[in-house]
Structure formats: C-alpha cells, structure tokens
C-alpha cells in the first residue's frame, strides 16, 4: 500500500472519531479517574514502606502511572470492526479491494488512535505534568520512541489476530473479553510488573503482554537505562514478528475459508 493511501485511511478514520465530542470529554475524565486512584494508592503504600519499592521511588511510580495511562489511552483501538464486517458479510468487499487488508486495518487503527492521542492522551499528560513531578530523562528519548512504536504494533497485531478468530467463531465477544482480562492484568497499564509476586514474574516474562504498556513506560520514565532498553526492544520486536507470522497464516486460512462459503 502506498504511503499516500495509507494516510488517507488514517485521515478518514481520525475524522470519524471526532463526531462524538461529549463522549470524549467524559472519556478524558475517565482517564483522570484512574490517574487519581493509582497515584493516591501508590503515595499511600509508598509512604508506609519508606518511600521506595520494587526499584521505584515515589516520584518514579507516579511518573510510571501517568505515562502508562497516557499510553493506554492513546493506544485505543476499535477491535469490533473486523468481527462486525465478518458477521454482516461486508468483509467480502474488503477482500476484492486492491489494497492489503492488514495495511488497511492498520491505517484505520492509526487514525483512531491518533484521535485518542490528541483528544485524550495529551490533555491528560499536560494536566498531570502540572499536578505531579514527572520524570522522563531526555537521553531515553530515542529508545522510548522505538519501544512505543513496537508496543503499538504489538497491541495492533494482538487485536488483529484475535479479530481473525471471527472467521471461525460466530461469537468472538468472549475471546475479546478474555484478551482484555489478560491485557488489564498483565500489560502493566495499572500495576507495574515489579509489584507482582516473584514466582509469577518469570512466567510473565515469557508472555507478550508486559511489552504492551510496561516496557515502553519503564523506558520512558528512566526506570531502566537506555543501554538496558536495547534488550527489551529486541524482545518486543520478536513478539511483533511472531504475531505478524501467526496472523498471516491465519489470514491465509481465513480467506480460503471465506471463498469456500461462496455467498
């Protein structure tokens, strides 16, 4: 797909989101709510344990909470599009379009997320920066940027792969719910991996989830030095590649299956 066409899809998807203004004001509030809850929580328990825990200082954990929340909100994706189009059959139209299905979905997803970044993520970041003492070392910037792009692609690929299940199952809502359950708990959007029980951490290190919010957040906030970030980024890249292969295989099988159904 040509870059120009890619950005056309991005633009259309962005504009579609701007239609619900009241909703997004409320959703900004929703993000603040979590920032309030978790900054209050960490302040309380960190004060009780003497101001440091799991490699975080109090200022460090507050920065982590805000950054992880802003990433989480900015990485909003509409994962009902593909299942919806499979259900009502309009995916057939997507198949005969002269553009790659994956790239078209990625472009729509980027437009959707770009809206949530500007309308919700940035306002929350700005206000939080005024309220709290946020740490984000400048020298981590290049590593942070790479890690963010990879974590975005990872989340997209995960959503895309789960969405493809709709070619085989009539009802994919339980799978989507399951995915959210795992992301909410294991991606580090609210509670960083460092606070999890020590016996679970090796298991979590083998899963892709912590590379969605936790990895970029600890790199941005300087919890890990840029030199150490290289290893984390490599693992992120491996996961993205793994999902690209998996979804390609599934996509091939799915499009064959759709042809068999006929119409």
């Amino acid at each position, binding site marked *: 797909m040509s870059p120009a066409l890619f950005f056309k899809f991005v633009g259309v998807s962005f504009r579609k989101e701007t239609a619900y203004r009241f909703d997004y004001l*409320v959703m900004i509030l929703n993000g603040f709510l979590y920032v309030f809850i978790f900054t209050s929580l960490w302040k309380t*328990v960190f004060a009780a344990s003497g101001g440091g825990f799991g490699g975080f200082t109090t200022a460090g954990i507050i920065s982590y909470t805000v950054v992880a929340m802003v990433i989480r909100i900015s990485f909003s994706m509409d994962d009902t599009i593909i299942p919806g189009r499979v259900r009502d059959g309009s995916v057939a139209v997507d198949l005969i379009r002269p553009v790659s299905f994956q790239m078209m979905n990625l472009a729509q997803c980027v437009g959707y997320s770009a809206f949530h970044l500007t309308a919700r993520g940035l306002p929350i970041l700005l206000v939080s920066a005024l309220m709290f003492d946020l740490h984000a070392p400048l020298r981590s910037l290049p590593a942070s940027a790479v890690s963010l792009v990879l974590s975005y692609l990872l989340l997209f690929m995960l959503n895309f792969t789960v969405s493809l299940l709709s070619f085989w199952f009539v009802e994919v809502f339980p799978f989507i719910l399951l995915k959210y359950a795992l992301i909410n708990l294991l991606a580090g959007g609210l509670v960083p991996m460092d606070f999890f029980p020590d016996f679970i951490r090796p298991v979590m290190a083998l899963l892709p989830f912590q590379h969605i919010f936790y990895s970029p957040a600890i790199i941005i906030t300087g919890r890990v030095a840029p030199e150490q970030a290289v290893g984390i980024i490599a693992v992120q890249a491996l996961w993205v590649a793994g999902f690209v292969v998996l979804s390609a295989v599934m996509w091939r099988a799915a499009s064959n299956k759709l042809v068999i159904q006929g119409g």
Partner: protein
Amino acid sequence: MTPDIMDTLKIYAALAMASLKARMQYKASFFVLIFAVTLFYLAQLGSLLVVIARFKEINDWTIGDMAFLFGLLTFSQGFTTLFFNGLQNFDTMLINGEFDRTLVRPLSPLAQVVLSKFEASTVAHSLIGAVALYYGAKMSGIVWTTEKMVSLPLVVFGGVLIQGGIRMFVNAVAFWTLRNAALVHTVVFSGREFVVYPITIYNYGIRFFLTFIFPLAFVNFYPAQYFLDKTGETLFHPALRTLTPVVGIILFSLSMVAWKKGIDHYQSSGS
C-alpha cells in the same frame, strides 16, 4: 410505578425467563460467555490482589479487610446489574425511537425499560462477591452479632439502591443529551474503581465527593468500617457507618424524580 407491585414482579419474572431461554438457545456460547466474564472479573481482582500481596495492608486495612470491602461492593453490584441492566444502552433506545413504544403501554415506562433485559452473566459478579465477603469476614475475624447479621442484608439493599439510583441519574441525562454511553460507562464501570480501595487513601476533595455527591462510599467503605469495627479512623462523622440504607432510599427517590423530569422533558428523536 404501577400500584400493583406483584403484577410488575410477575412480568419481570416472565421477561427474565424469556431472556434466559433466548440465551440458552446457544448453550455453548452462553457458558463460554459466563466463563469469560468470570475470568474478566478475576483479572480485575488480580490487580488488587497483587497490590495487597505486595504491600500487605493499605492504611491499616489488612488483606481480610480489603477482601470484605471488595466483596461488599461486588456482591451488591451483582444485584444492581440483575435489576437495572435494562438501563444499559438506554441512549440507543431513545435515539432509535424504541423508547416511544413504552410510553403508550399500560405499564410504567421506567419499569418497562428496567425490566427489558435480564442479564444472566451477573451471576458471576455476585458469586465472586459472595466468596470475597465470606473469606474477608473470616480472615478479619468478624464476630457476627445479631445486629451485624440483620445489618448485612440492609446494607446490600441500600447498596443496590445507591448504585441503581446512580444508574438512573446518569441515564436520565440521555433525555437531554440523547447520546451518553461514555458517561454511563465512566460512572457505572470506572466510578466503582474508586471504592475498591479504602477511601482514606484519597485527598479531602475526593473523600467528600464519594461521600456527599457521588455516595459510592456508602456501598462498601462506611458499612465495612462498621462490620470490621474500625474504631481508629473516622471520616466526617461516625454515624455515616450506619446510614447506607437511608442514603440508598434518599438517592433512589431523587433519581425517580430526575427520571420523571426527564420524561416530561422528552421529545421523541423522530426516528
């Protein structure tokens, strides 16, 4: 509401059975859904467990206390969803004109909306809540005096009225704004996250908000103080610990007034 409550309840039971039968048509997907919903709630609980396991206590609330706090919230939330789930997607009912049908039928429009969708997966919620309540009470060594045993159903009753009243309020907003799904989501699903933790962790403004403006703290925090005999900490006034049913009745009555005002204001979207 119609004068004859028994009739309304009978209709509710009939609608609930019809909805359950409809869901059971696809047995496998029904049970997969219940399974997924349960896992989803357990994952939610997971974040809380991680925090407690790591820090042992939060402002003098031990693991047992926290489980009791969580149980009280989740248990009454399960019942709230059971009774008020019809309000979900209420704005869609207004937008596509479905609500107009209820206005011409001989049963109160509110009853028809509220009773329109029975949600069976709410069982998962109540179940997790009950387990948390049981173990929380056990771990914290609650002594079940007669007074406390009588109080528990009253507190759940009050908690359901508070949460139901809040849902009615935010849904009544749709009579003016039409689309309000995000507001409902924020208030109903995210608002509860505030009271998963003892509200003593928040600054004065948020404590005040959760007590006097958006009184979710009465669903679990204040009654939990009473059940757990937390004498050391007092927010605002010690009497608040026993006021849950009263707050519930007041809030729910007010929400009925708001709902009535909304219907009077309502003009069909025309679709």
